[in-house]
């Protein structure tokens, strides 16, 4: 019982790492296209996060169920089924996004639909076939949270610098950098924020390691 609880905690922590330590965009470099080009306003970021979640979570869960199929069914057939599910999930995603912000689809253009072919589910779906559905669901949620945090941070930064607004509301910024909304600035912004995340993760690891060393020292002194 204790062992089971420990393994559940371990799995939970492992998937929570997907949010920062193994962030799908900043660390693993997956689903970069929408994060780089589409995320130049906060509204776009919210729209991308929404469609990413609505596509990736069902695909990973379905993939987990596909793992229960007999081994005779080839891997490419399972991948094709995942792709069909991803494509079909675009319809409710489009309807929901249209309800929230009517201009969202025009603003994002083809990048709204490109999220259906994001590399996160392409890479993770075969691995989720060996997981239980609840863990595949938990991984989908964590991947979505990780992607959303990245896209929202990048889009907030770019909107503020390019237009001087945040979520459409004007802020105090005397100098605007309009080119930050273009593709080249998207690459640089994602790269710099990835470096900042890496630096923060390394620092936090150093802090945790030094705290543990200090605790061990106190224990041995006692």
């Amino acid at each position, binding site marked *: 019982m204790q062992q089971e609880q420990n393994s559940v905690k371990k799995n939970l922590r492992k998937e929570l790492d997907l949010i920062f330590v193994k962030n799908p965009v*900043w*660390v*693993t*470099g*997956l*689903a*970069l*296209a929408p994060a*780089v*080009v*589409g995320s130049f306003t906060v509204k776009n970021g919210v729209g991308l996060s929404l469609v990413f979640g609505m596509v990736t979570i069902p695909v990973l869960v379905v993939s987990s169920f596909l793992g229960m199929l007999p081994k005779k069914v*080839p*891997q*490419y*057939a399972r*991948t*094709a089924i995942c*792709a*069909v599910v*991803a*494509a*079909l999930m*675009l*319809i409710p995603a*489009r*309807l929901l996004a249209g309800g929230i912000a009517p201009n969202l*689809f025009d603003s*994002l*253009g*083809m*990048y*709204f*639909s*490109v999220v*259906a*072919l994001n*590399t996160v589910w*392409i890479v993770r779906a075969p691995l989720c076939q060996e997981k239980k559905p609840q863990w595949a669901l938990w991984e989908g949620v964590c991947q979505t949270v990780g992607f959303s945090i990245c896209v929202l941070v990048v889009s907030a930064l770019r909107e503020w610098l390019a237009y001087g607004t945040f979520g459409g509301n004007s802020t105090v910024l005397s100098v605007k950098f309009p*080119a930050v909304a*273009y*593709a*080249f*600035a*998207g*690459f*640089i912004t*994602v*790269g*710099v924020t*990835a*470096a*900042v995340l*890496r*630096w923060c993760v*390394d620092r936090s690891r150093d802090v945790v390691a030094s705290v543990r060393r200090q605790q061990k020292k106190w224990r041995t002194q006692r």
Partner: protein
Amino acid sequence: MNNTLIGIFSLLLTALVLQNAVFSRALDITSLLVLPGGRKGLRQFGLILTGITTAAALFAALLNPLISQWENVQYLRPVVYVLILTLLYGIVCFLLNWKKRDWFHDHSMLLTMAFFNCAAYGAMALTVYSGFHWLESTVYGLGIGLSFLLAVFLLEQGRRCMSICNIPKAFRGLPAELVYVGLISLSLYGLVGHQLAA
């Protein structure tokens, strides 16, 4: 005939340089930066992707007159594009699994990433958006694939250069490569300006 050839050549150059799929639209940037297998793997992937983008663009152009007549086509068009890719993927995998099983098992992940790819989807969406006929769509799709190969070549040079630089620890790997790609994209901005449609 001469005008057609010139038009095709200029369309190819446009897709290759002016509207480079990687540097101007960030399509398939993940495969470029993250795909395992080294330089050889990337080049193989690029060649496979070129074939897929060409075929996908051609299919999209041929099916567009049919799809345009449907109701609620704006909701169904992306689904149809992904289904076209899925169908092509299924057929190619079935044939390769039957005829060249060993090669297929070694390169199955490569094929999956090549088919379910932003660049392949982008080839279809952009050719339909631009209103190209079947020949122009084929050439544009070919150009998108070749633009990926050009990006592979340019990034290879960058990686060699960065391997001997004393890059700060936080920027080593993906962050520095993203900034590198961003600066190449900035250089191509001088040709394109900010007139690219998504």
